């Protein structure tokens, strides 16, 4: 291991290039599909893209962002989505109306988050394994309650119709994403809790020795993560008008990918909300675009996977060059 003799590319330039890669790629890809795919830029397509794909993944990824920023990860995001969806549907079918069903769903999600926090902060289990355990247990519980995966449909008389609601031309679910993103983003970037999360995520011993309560921060992070997923659960079940067991797990991988791709936006590689949203957009745009230009649905996943890998590789490689 000898020291490098050559002088590397100017770090400032590299840093700017790195931070610009994700937005740049999105612009390029959007441009590409706008040209190559008929109907890509049509209102119908874009709104369907945003509404159906973007919203749910974005909410889950926002929750995941906080967990990653705090130095951990949350594998049980799908569980929170599903539990919230389950509570929502059951409460609606029980005739309790939205005023009870929505808080009930949020509470169900919060419980999942609290369970995680209990394992992580209370028992000191590492987040990967703790949330893995929650995922297992959550799957089991759902299988038992739904008798092996039978969906529970919302009765016709109590359809929530949330997805049809519009305000200022934008559908309600999109407003929810904006609201949640704004709240979580502002707190993470400018809030006291955000600073504490940053400290715990980068140097946990130092945080402990500075008088921060790791337990309380963990609790807030994992409950908040689960709450964001609970909102996704409400939107999901409103969209398909049913609770489909274990459907939340599908978001996990893309959420993780989006969060880590989003770290390229930050100068120091920290997880951040705007980056996460761009990451989600990236994934959705590619999937949608490929679909429109007639690519086999299955090749989409390959392409998405390859592109995520490339972005991650670029991000880590450049960051390493930067610190030399």
């Amino acid at each position, binding site marked *: 291991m000898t020291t490098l003799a050559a002088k590397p590319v100017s770090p400032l330039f590299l840093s700017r290039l790195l931070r610009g890669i994700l937005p740049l790629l999105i612009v390029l890809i959007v441009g590409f599909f706008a040209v190559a795919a008929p109907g890509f830029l049509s209102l119908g397509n874009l709104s369907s893209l945003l509404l159906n794909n973007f919203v749910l993944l974005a909410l889950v990824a926002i929750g995941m962002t906080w967990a990653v920023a705090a130095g951990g990860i949350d594998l049980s995001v799908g569980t929170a989505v599903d539990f919230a969806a389950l509570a929502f549907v059951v409460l609606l079918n029980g005739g309790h109306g939205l005023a009870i069903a929505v808080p009930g769903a949020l509470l169900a999600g919060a419980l999942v988050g609290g369970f995680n926090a209990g394992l992580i902060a209370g028992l000191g289990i590492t987040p990967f394994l*703790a949330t893995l*355990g929650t995922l297992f247990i959550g799957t*089991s519980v759902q299988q038992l309650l739904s008798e092996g995966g039978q969906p529970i449909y919302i009765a016709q008389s109590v359809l929530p119709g949330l997805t049809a609601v519009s305000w200022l031309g934008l559908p309600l679910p999109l407003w929810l994403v904006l609201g949640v993103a704004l709240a979580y983003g502002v707190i993470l970037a400018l809030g006291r809790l955000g600073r504490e999360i940053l400290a715990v995520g980068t140097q946990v011993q130092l945080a402990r020795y500075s008088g921060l309560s790791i337990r309380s921060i963990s609790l807030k992070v994992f409950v908040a993560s689960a709450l964001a997923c609970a909102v996704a659960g409400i939107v999901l079940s409103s969209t398909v008008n049913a609770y489909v067991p274990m459907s939340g797990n599908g978001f996990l991988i893309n959420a993780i*990918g989006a969060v880590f791709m989003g770290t390229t936006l930050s100068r120091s590689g920290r997880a951040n909300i705007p980056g996460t949203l761009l990451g989600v957009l990236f994934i959705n745009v590619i999937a949608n675009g490929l679909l429109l230009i007639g690519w086999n649905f*299955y090749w989409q996943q390959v392409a998405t*996977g390859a592109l995520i*890998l490339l972005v991650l590789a670029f991000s880590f490689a450049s960051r390493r060059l930067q610190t030399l």
Partner: protein
Amino acid sequence: MPASEILAQPLFRRLGLLLLRRGSLLGFVAILAVFAVSAPNFLSPGNIANVFAQSAILGILAFGLTCVVIGGGSNVVSGGLDLSLAANLGLCAAVYSSLNNAGLQGWESIGLTLLCGLAVGALNGITVVVLRLPPLLATLASMNLIAGLELVLTHNSVLPTDSALLDILANGEWLQVPVLAWVLLVVALLLGLLIQHSPYGLRLYAVGEYPEAARAAGLGVGRYVFSSYLIAGLCAATAAFCSSAYFSGSTTGSGELLLSVVAIAFLGGVFSRRLVANIPGTLLATLLLGFLINGFQLLNIASFWVNGVQGVLILLVVAMSSALRKEEGGL
């Protein structure tokens, strides 16, 4: 920790430590005993052989993951991990079925399938060692990619196939024990000898536990980590043969195996004195899960409980291990 320190700990912790160290094996036996008493035919040789056979797929995958975990260190976030194993299995199975159905010679399809598994392993090795992505992310991304390739081949449906190899694996017997069980045991033996008793294995442990020490000793850390991913890829291919035999072709949903494989690899550590991942421990953990599922089946308990039990087991084991390790850590 040395005995003197153990004795200085409060009673509860001492019990916990003792339980974890010696108790895991006892726990295993206890569970078997419970099933033996309550479930009909549990201890019959046919049933036991069946469990071994059914555990082959999970077990071989878990061996692969064990090697990666050993070489990368057991810190879950930055340490060795291969999340693409299950997807690799799916891809290899799909490749084998496709090649076989396309009329290739027996050895050709087998060889190319093994190559496929190795190629995925090499991809992981490159992203982790050369590009230096954290294994969690690297293998997550490759899992995505590989699962996509599998879908391209299978169009999300089953690809039935048949061959001499699959015939032997599925229906063959030797000494009244199914061939699949033998495969599990042979792979366990081979890898066990490699990892636990050869210099390669010892050095792999060194690389995972303390890379600086390995480097100072002149070991090429990158090469060992890369090789562990190759082994994992080979295991995935081997498990793919077993899976194809079991399902008479390639099947969907192999991704669901992933979490169980991860659980088993980490649970396996509890059966070793040093609480590190190891091949024999992984074998025991695989069988434990296998007997659990089998016992539930025989007792007519819904299989839905299995996931929950897995989850609780992981949490129990990990909680006690981290209490033991007494590592100052945050999230």
